[in-house]
Structure formats: C-alpha cells, structure tokens
C-alpha cells in the first residue's frame, strides 16, 4: 500500500517544486494573478500530500519493510554526519582486505570519543556495487572486530548502525569463513568491556545484522525492521512460495513495535509520517537524545556490570 502513496507523494512533490520555481520568475515579472493562482494550487497540493501521508498512520508490516529499504532513507554516513563530529574513518581488517559494506571509525559524540560503525549500502549504483548493497564479507566483520578491540583498548563506547539485507552469500565469502567471522564477532561483542549501543535504522536481517548488534541497548527507528531472515527468504523456506510476502511480513514479528513487545528492542525512535526521509532532522534529534541518555546510563556501569547487563539481555531469550 505504502508504495502507492509514496508514488503519489513523489508526483505531488515534483509538481510543487515545478510551481515553486515558476513562482520565483513570476515574482520578478510581476504577473500577480497567475502568482496567486499558483499559491492556491500549492496549498491544494500540500493538502493532498498531507492527506495522503495521513494514510501512513496505519501501515502493515510489509509497508514497514518497504520504508526500511527506501534508498533515500538516512544511511550510515548521514547518521555519522548528523550525530557525530570529527569523524576519522578506519579501514580494513588488517588481515585480508577492505570491505566497504562496513563503514566506521572514531568520532566524538557530545565530545565523548566513541567508535561508530555500521552497514553501508551506498547510494549511487557504483557505491551499491562496492558495498554489495550492505552485505558484508567476512573481511567486513573482521574489520568491525578490529574496531571493537581498539575501542576496548581505549575505553571508547561503541555505537553500531544496523542496515543490511544479510551477510553476502558468495563463494569467496564462504571460502574465507563467513560463518566463523560472524560467530567470532558475536563472541567478541558479548564480552566487550565498554558500553555498546546498536541502532537498527533500516533492515536488519539474519546473522549479518546480529553480528554487529550484541549490544547493551538496541534502539530501533519506528519503521526499521529486524528479523531472522529477509521476508523473501522466509517465504521461500517456509512456504516455498515467494508471493506470500505480505503474509510472511505479518507473521515474522519484525516491526519495531513487535520487537519492543518481545523485549528485543529497548526503545523506539519516532519517525515522521511516511518515514525518516520525509524529515530526517527530527529523527536525528530524537536519536541523538536517546543515544545520549542511554550512553550516560551505561557509562555509570563498571566493565563487569556492562558484561553482565549484555549477558542478561541475550541469556533470557
């Protein structure tokens, strides 16, 4: 459903933009009649747009999946740019290769040095290819582990951003130990002596998402989804039929609300109607406050308390 709404809002936005640029010219040339006529048109279109988005109050889980995957949704680089300062990128696993599907480094968060990293899908086609649409190779998880270890050495809190269709299913990835890389990341994260906060911002699928989210706190954007597998994979395994996606999405309990109810998400970050891309700044603001609050809480804990806290979270499931 939501895709239809977005198609229409996109058309309306385009129209509004066209008229708005016409208005600028009219303003100069002084054709007032036409000018006011246009203003009315714009008001009407904005009303239409708002009515349309109003329908987004009641979205299906499948709609959430759709929004979570939107390419104009804020990505890791947007979040780092908006929430952190003085970012310094770190590269490579120092073992085999650089994996662009994991992006991260050191930065300041409210003047606190932190390690920040996450999945990177890329925005342009070239970036998408370089990042394999956010599907990491073992090298990506090992790069993350390298950053985790350094964060621990320098006592830096860790903040991870989750947005991945899953680990990359390729031949080289398997040959280089995709399974073991994820397993080692889970094991390492479970025993990190520093605060770890994960934010699910888009889609968090399968072990590829979990590998970066063994955290003390898991925050989810309202329209983010987090699930055992992609809905498509779920369909093909359970129903041997990929057309049952709508049903699958409803059965999977993958929305932020459902995860919150199941005590897997600790907090939900509100999004405007239609999702973060309709007004990213308000999302950044709320996310900033939420991370800061949680971080301050976690910083009061000793290393062994942090470990125990994280252990409890995953042990009880």
């Amino acid at each position, binding site marked *: 459903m939501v895709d239809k709404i977005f198609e229409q809002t996109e058309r309306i936005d385009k129209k509004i933009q066209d008229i708005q640029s016409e208005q600028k010219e009219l303003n100069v040339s002084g054709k007032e009649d036409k000018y006011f006529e246009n203003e009315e048109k714009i008001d009407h279109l904005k009303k239409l747009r708002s009515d349309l988005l109003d329908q987004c109050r009641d979205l299906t889980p499948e709609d959430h999946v759709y929004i979570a995957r939107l390419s104009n949704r804020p990505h890791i680089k947007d979040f780092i740019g908006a929430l952190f300062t003085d970012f310094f990128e770190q590269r490579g696993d120092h073992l085999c290769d650089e994996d662009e599907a994991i992006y991260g480094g050191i930065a300041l968060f409210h003047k606190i040095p932190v390690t920040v990293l996450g999945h990177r899908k890329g925005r342009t086609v070239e970036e998408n290819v370089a990042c394999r649409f956010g599907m990491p190779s073992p090298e990506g998880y090992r790069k993350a582990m390298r950053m985790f270890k350094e964060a621990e050495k320098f006592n830096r809190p860790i903040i991870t951003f989750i947005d991945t269709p899953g680990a990359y299913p390729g*031949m080289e990835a398997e040959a280089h130990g995709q399974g073991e890389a994820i397993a080692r990341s889970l*094991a390492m994260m479970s025993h990190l002596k520093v605060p770890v906060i994960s934010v699910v911002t888009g889609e968090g699928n399968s072990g590829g998402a*979990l590998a970066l989210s063994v955290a003390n706190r898991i925050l989810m954007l309202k329209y983010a989804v987090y699930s055992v597998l992609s809905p498509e994979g779920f369909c093909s395994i359970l129903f041997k039929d990929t057309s049952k996606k709508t049903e699958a999405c409803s059965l999977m309990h993958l929305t932020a609300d459902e995860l919150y109810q199941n005590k897997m998400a600790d907090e939900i970050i509100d999004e405007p109607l239609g999702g973060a891309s309709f007004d990213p700044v308000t999302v950044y603001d709320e996310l900033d406050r939420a991370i800061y609050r949680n971080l301050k809480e976690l910083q009061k804990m000793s290393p062994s308390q942090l470990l125990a806290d994280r252990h409890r979270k995953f042990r009880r499931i």
Partner: protein
Amino acid sequence: MTEEYIDTDPFEMCKGCHRRSRRSQWESHYYVCPVCGKYKNVSAGYRFSLIFDNKSFKVINRGITSDDPLNFPGYKEKLRSVKERTHLNETAVAAVGKISGVKTVAVVLDSRFFMGSMSQAAGERITRAIEAADKHKLPLVIFSASGGARMQEGMFSLWQMAKTADAVEEFSRNGGLYISVLTHPTTGGVTASFATLGDITLAEPGALIGFAGPRVIEQTIGKKLPKGFQRAEYLYQHGFVDAIVERSELKKTLTKLLMLHGCKVTGGTPW
C-alpha cells in the same frame, strides 16, 4: 535411551546410491553406506553410545522443549506431529558421560528434527550444556547439524546465535576445552555461532558446511557451484577444519585430543 526410528523393514535405503542394505550391515558400518560410503545422519542416542564408555551417559536438560513464542500458525501442531514421527522432542540433546575415562559434556544436534533448525529450546539446551561444562570444568564436545534458523520462532531463533556464542566465549575464557564436530549438514546460524568457535574443529567426511546455503549462493552469483564446494574436504583444504574424521575413528580422535589437552585418559593410545 533410544531415539531410532521404529521400523520393521529389515532393509534401509542409502540416500546417496539408493541401494538398500540390511540394518545390521548399516550398524556394523557405523551407519556409513556399505555400498557407496555416504554418511547417514544418526540419532543423538547413537552418537552418545558411540563415544561414551560402556554406552553409558546421562541426558541433561531434556525438560526444555520448544515453545511457540510468536504464536505462529500451525507451529504447535507441526511440533506435535514431528515429535510423534521422530520420537525426538528437540533437535539438540545434551548428555554427560565418560570418553575413555574422561567425564565430558556432549551435545548432538539431530537433523531429523525440523531439519536441525535452531529453536529457542535447542539454544537453551546447548547453552545450559556449555554452562554445565564451564561450572564443572569438563571438556565439551558438540556435534553440529543444522539447516539454519527455526523460521517459526523468528528473532527468538536468531538470538540463540548470540546466546550460544556468549556461552562458548565465557567457557573459553575460563580455559575450557571445546571440540566442535561438524556433521552433515551444518549451515546458517549454527555455522555462524557455536559450531565454528571450537578450539579444535573436526568434520565428518562429505559433510556440507557453510553459512549461506548452496542454492542461495547460486542464485546470487548466477552460476552453478563447483563440485565439492562447502564440503568438509573443501574446508579442510582451506584450513577451517583441522581434521576430517571417519565415524569409526571418532572416539579414538576425541580420546587423543582429550589427552593432548591434559586429560587423563584410560586404555592406551590406539592410533
């Protein structure tokens, strides 16, 4: 304890060569096809009796059974029917016994139960087994086999990866010895958690071992996978498996490894 299929047919077919062999033949060959050598999946009970002295062992954590955390349509019924058909009550079974005199915790994932898919109950059983080994300072052996996550349990299944990896890491930091034995097939979340975190990694010949399933990889890369890819021998070649061990040699190898890790084994060194 027996968890074998109850079947009156004195013959049983091999899934590899489709030849039928006598049950007694299968048994004397450790359930490796007497005709083509293909490994047959075996029950937890059989595994235990194979490695534990005098076929004597105590099953632990058997009370933990699958719940239906997401109220998934039809799951409860399917669980019931699978339990009836397989005479199993979960994919993971844990036991304590002695391997050549060395008290050891062992876990077997039985792929005949929901294709060895990871459920909350299975994860809990495995975690408790690891915790028991940690608490009592016993060596740990896990025979993995899994088709992946139990879809019907969604995120509750996925998080078992973190839970079990955490338990292994804690066990390992406390100095525990964990021997992981990969059997056919070990894929998905099991491969990406406890199964690849052993101090020593063994595999049965021909076992499929990987994170992504072969079909998914083929769809992604758009071509057929080469023969032998993701097989135990391939992993051995690439150094993710220390040794490929015939089922008939398994107890010997475990005994040797226990001895090499300072355990006092009984009965000489017959390798």
